[in-house]
Structures are given as structure tokens and as C-alpha cells.
């Protein structure tokens, strides 16, 4: 009896979204109690990161009616996390974040199933990521976002008219915070801009000139960077600095302090040292809560269709009063990560040499002197001479063989093209499809048998 009352009160707010029709709902929205069950049954959400945002996201998703959730994070819990990463307790320090976070949410939210993965995001195969319906990102690094983005976009396929195929779209919801500011965005690869389309949104980190650090430090940060970038190498020849090793951090802090004293500069503290070296801005618990809530709601909207999704980038600023705004960014049509590229159909017998010549004549490309790369392998390089020599023998081989005898895949070509009588260098994505090569997949065999 008690159980069912709890369930009822838990789903009361959710039901307002899932049971009633509306004017702002997404396409194909079919309200009804079955939807609540379907969310549990058929939607699998991956949460990337179990830190400040990740803890909030896991709790929010579990309470929003998702049942099948997994979380991936490579970090262990530190004392300094405890003020905002509310799923962790003092006795958890040193344990993997993903495991503790999963367990705590499962203890508090009946029926939810959270599978933790204590590893690096690069350690998982593509198949792991392809299994999820939606990927929610709670990360603090541009590099990690860029990686997950490239993975999610790699599932995307286009049809012959360069339209994205809906069943290959892997939706992502990305949150990020820095102090009192944050963003939440929805990425539908092929439909809305991907992370790489708008990489310019993230300004490069400010780097102090080495000579300033060595000669004329003026701020506490200068002293810290001197100890970190110059003094460390001088003293520990060969040993790499590890920002996650507390002893290394303490050493840098002590050296920075000595230097600050020498130049009469105040303000070097251990937490500032960590901040400068790891490039961290203090995290604010409430910002994480607000951004995660927005992300969890978008995840629910994508899955259920109960409302149109954010279109497509929300910024939040709580530093002075409160300011929030949604901007609709546009895709970079030539994006190498999410764009369709140029479709090229070839016979399996075409040599790499012939392929390079074809690119020169192709009306959409007119690409001369092309260098070709496929999945991290350089098939042919026009320059420098040392690489040209190493790749020259590939020219007479068939492209089909060089690409590992797969019926279709993406290759990248760099070369020059004439634009308004001016030679410009371009890097293009090409979708190569081999004609007359049978593509036998499980799906087709199944369909053929029926």
C-alpha cells in the first residue's frame, strides 16, 4: 500500500507531461500511461561523467521515470568533491565515482537500474555507445566532449539525397558549468549543430608567455605556472608532472610560494595552484543543479516527445541577478564530423591513383593534388617528401583493398581547389560507396528470409 502511494506521488508531475496532449508537443507524441512504461522499457540513457553535473543528472533522470541508465567516469572521489557532489560521503573518498553514484541513486529511487563503468571514455568500443538511445554529458573538458561528439556522429548515415537517416541519429544532451555560468544544449547529429560545428564557442585557454613567467612574474598565477612549467622540468628531469598526484601538486605549490616571496607577490594558495594548473574555475552547486535539471528535462522531451526540444543552446548566468537565453546556432555545412560530405560511387577495381584523378574531375570537388586518409591511416600524402615516399606504393593498389574491403566508408581528402581564380586549400569528407559489392548485414538477411 505504502509502496503504491509513493509511486503515485512520484509520477504525479511526470504524468502532467506524459498523459495530456498539448500544442507544443513534439511530432508523433502519443500521450498515455503506456508512455511511462515505454520510457522504462525501451530508453537507455548513458550519463558521461559522475562529478558535479553527473550526480545531479543521475538523480534527475532516475526521478524523471528513466529506468535503464548507465554512467561512465574514470575518477575517484576526492575530499574537495563533497561540498557539491552530494551522492558522496566522507567514507567514499578514494572510491570510483561511477560506482558510488550508481549505488546511492539505486538505494534512494526504487526500481531504477544504474550500471557503472569505472574507466576512460576511450576504453569503450563504439558498440558500447551505439547501444544507448540518448547520451547525456556532464563533463568539464572540451577534449572529452569532442571525443563523445565524434563517436555519436560516427553512427550518423546519410541517404543518397544527403538527408540524415533518422534511425542513425544519436541524440546528445550536453551540460557545462563554470562558476555561476552554465549551458545546456541539445545535439541531434545531422539536424542541429554538433560540438565541432561550434567549437569556437569555447575560447582557447589563456596561456602566459614563458619569458614572462621566467623573468617578470606579476601575479600569483604567473608564479604557479613558473613552478609548473619551468621549475618542474629543471628539477625532475624526465619525470612527467601528474596533476592528479597530490605530492606533485604540493611540490608546485611550495615552489610557487618561494617564487612569490622572492618577487613580493601575494595570493598563492594550494587551491589556486590546483585551479591554475588544472584550469579549474570553482564549481557552484546550484549552477550544477540548474543546468542538470535543464538537461534531464531535454532528455525526457527527446525520448517522450512531450514537448519540442530546446533549440538548441541555452546559456545561464547567475553571477548578477539571473540571465538566461536560448540561441539557435546553425550547422557548419562542411563540418568534417557531422556533415554529409560528398558521395562518391566507385567500382571496386579503382586504384588510389585513379581515385585521386577522379577527385580532380568531380564537379562538386575539383580537388587537385589530393592527399587521402582513411580511419587514421594515411593512404597517400603529397608532401612532405618523406611521407610521399612512404605512401607512394599505395597508388597502384585498389582503394577497396586499401580500405579493408568494406562496401562503404568515409575517407578524408586534402588538396587545393580554384575559388574565384584563387587557389585555396580544402579538407573534404568523402562518402565512398563501392558499386557491385554486396553488403550483407543481419538486417537484410532477416528481411530476405521473411
Amino acid at each position, binding site marked *: 500500500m505504502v509502496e503504491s502511494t509513493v509511486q503515485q506521488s512520484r509520477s504525479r508531475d511526470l504524468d502532467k507531461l506524459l498523459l495530456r496532449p498539448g500544442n507544443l508537443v513534439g511530432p508523433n507524441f502519443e500521450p498515455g500511461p503506456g508512455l511511462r512504461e515505454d520510457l522504462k522499457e525501451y530508453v537507455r540513457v548513458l550519463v558521461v561523467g559522475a562529478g558535479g553535473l553527473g550526480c545531479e543528472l543521475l538523480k534527475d533522470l532516475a526521478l524523471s521515470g528513466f529506468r535503464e541508465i548507465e554512467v561512465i567516469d574514470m575518477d575517484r572521489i576526492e575530499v574537495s568533491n563533497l561540498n557539491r557532489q552530494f551522492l558522496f560521503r566522507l567514507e567514499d573518498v578514494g572510491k570510483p565515482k561511477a560506482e558510488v553514484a550508481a549505488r546511492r541513486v539505486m538505494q534512494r529511487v526504487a526500481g531504477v537500474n544504474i550500471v557503472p563503468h569505472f574507466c576512460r571514455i576511450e576504453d569503450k568500443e563504439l558498440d558500447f555507445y551505439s547501444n544507448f538511445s540518448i547520451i547525456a554529458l556532464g563533463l568539464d573538458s*572540451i577534449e572529452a566532449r569532442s571525443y563523445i561528439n*565524434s563517436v555519436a556522429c560516427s553512427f550518423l548515415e546519410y541517404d543518397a539525397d544527403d538527408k540524415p537517416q533518422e*534511425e542513425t541519429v544519436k541524440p546528445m544532451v550536453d551540460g557545462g558549468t563554470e562558476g555561476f555560468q552554465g549551458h545546456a544544449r541539445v545535439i541531434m547529429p545531422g539536424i542541429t549543430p554538433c560540438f565541432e560545428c561550434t567549437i569556437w564557442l569555447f575560447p*582557447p585557454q589563456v596561456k602566459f*608567455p614563458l619569458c614572462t613567467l621566467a623573468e617578470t612574474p606579476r601575479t600569483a598565477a604567473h608564479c604557479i605556472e613558473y613552478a609548473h612549467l619551468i621549475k618542474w622540468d629543471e628539477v625532475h628531469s624526465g619525470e612527467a608532472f601528474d596533476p592528479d598526484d597530490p605530492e606533485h601538486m604540493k611540490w608546485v605549490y611550495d615552489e610557487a610560494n618561494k617564487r612569490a616571496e622572492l618577487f613580493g607577490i601575494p595570493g598563492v594558495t594550494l587551491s589556486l595552484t590546483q585551479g591554475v594548473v588544472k584550469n579549474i574555475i570553482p564549481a557552484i552547486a546550484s549552477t550544477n543543479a540548474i543546468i542538470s535539471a535543464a538537461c534531464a528535462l531535454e532528455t525526457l522531451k527527446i525520448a517522450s*516527445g512531450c514537448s519540442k526540444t530546446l533549440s538548441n543552446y541555452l546559456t545561464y548566468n547567475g553571477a548578477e541577478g539571473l540571465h538566461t537565453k536560448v540561441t539557435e546556432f546553425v550547422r557548419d555545412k562542411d563540418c*568534417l564530423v557531422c556533415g554529409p560530405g560528398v558521395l562518391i560511387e566507385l567500382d571496386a577495381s579503382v586504384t588510389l591513383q585513379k581515385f585521386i584523378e577522379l577527385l580532380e574531375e568531380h564537379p562538386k570537388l575539383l580537388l587537385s593534388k589530393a592527399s587521402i*586518409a582513411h580511419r587514421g591511416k594515411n593512404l597517400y*600524402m603529397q608532401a612532405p617528401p618523406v611521407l610521399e615516399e612512404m605512401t607512394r606504393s599505395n597508388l597502384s593498389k585498389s582503394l577497396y583493398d586499401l580500405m579493408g574491403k568494406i562496401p562503404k566508408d568515409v575517407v578524408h581528402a586534402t588538396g587545393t581547389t580554384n575559388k574565384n581564380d584563387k587557389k585555396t*586549400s580544402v579538407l573534404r569528407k568523402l562518402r565512398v560507396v563501392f558499386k557491385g559489392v554486396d553488403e550483407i548485414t543481419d538486417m537484410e538477411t532477416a528481411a530476405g528470409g521473411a
Partner: protein
Amino acid sequence: MIKLFKVKEKQRELAENANGKTLVKKQSAGELRLHRDISELNLQKTCTIAFPNGKDDLMNFEVTVRPDEGYYLGGTFMFTFQVSPMYPHEAPKVKCKTKVYHPNIDLEGNVCLNILREDWKPVLNINTIIYGLFHLFTQPNYEDPLNHDAAAVLRDNPKMFESNVRRAMSGGYVGQTLFPRCM
């Protein structure tokens, strides 16, 4: 998208019983941009490039500079480049592997070149950096020193600086520091 997820979840269950995993090397946007930079390299005859890990690792390479004028004429200086997947958002990490008596390069191989740190912009490329490194040797600059002593000598006594450079390059001591021969 719930209908789509339903269909896919059913497919997934089918597939799970079927075949193995595909491990595919992901190519980052940074690697692609680097591929373009490298394939368009236009090196002067004073600079050469080598790829110690073979043709498929462009992210780690070595550049050798042989100045054809100035104080460092006749010397050979090797730099390592480490390019991150976030290139060109982030500048490559460049170190000088040849111990050199130079106002803008310290004895650990740190290089003071503005475009490697404060003035890096994604529109710059590998060619620009190599060009910049070459210029460090033809125009050493005492105003942005990393090797303070070398900078002071260059500013106050260019003749002595010249003889110090010669001594260091032919494998000798400048002050307390021994330099290996590099010519």
C-alpha cells in the same frame, strides 16, 4: 523518438546474440586538420621533418633546423612536436631536444616563441611554427629571455655572445654549463 527507440531496442536484443564487436580507431577533428597542415608543408631547405612512429602517426614528429646565416650558422637543432587531438584549438607542444646556448631557449628545451603560447590562434599552422623556430636562430632576441645569462651577454657584448655560441656548438663549456657538439 520513443517509437524509434522501441524498434532499435528490439534490434539490439537480436544483435546481442549475434556477432562480435567492432573496434574502430576514431580520427579526431584535430588529426584531420593536422593531416591537412602536414600534406601542405612547404619547408625551406634549412628545415627537415621526420616521423619516428611511421606514416600513420602525424601527431608526434621531429623538426630539424639548420640555420644558414647568423650566430648559429652550421648548427643542427632538433625539436619535438606533440600535437593534441584538440589541435588547432590548442597549440602543439614544442621542445628543443638539442641543448643550446640561446636567450629564448632554456637548458631544459623550453622555447619562448609567442605563437606557441599567448599568441596562438587556430588559423596558424605547423608551417608558421617551423618558420618561427627558424627565425629564433637567425634573430635571437634578448628582450624575451628564458636563458637570462645568454640574453644579458647578447645585449651587452654581441662579440662575446658570438664566441660563446661557437664554443657551445662545437661542444664546450659556457660558464658552468657543458654543451654537446651540434655542428
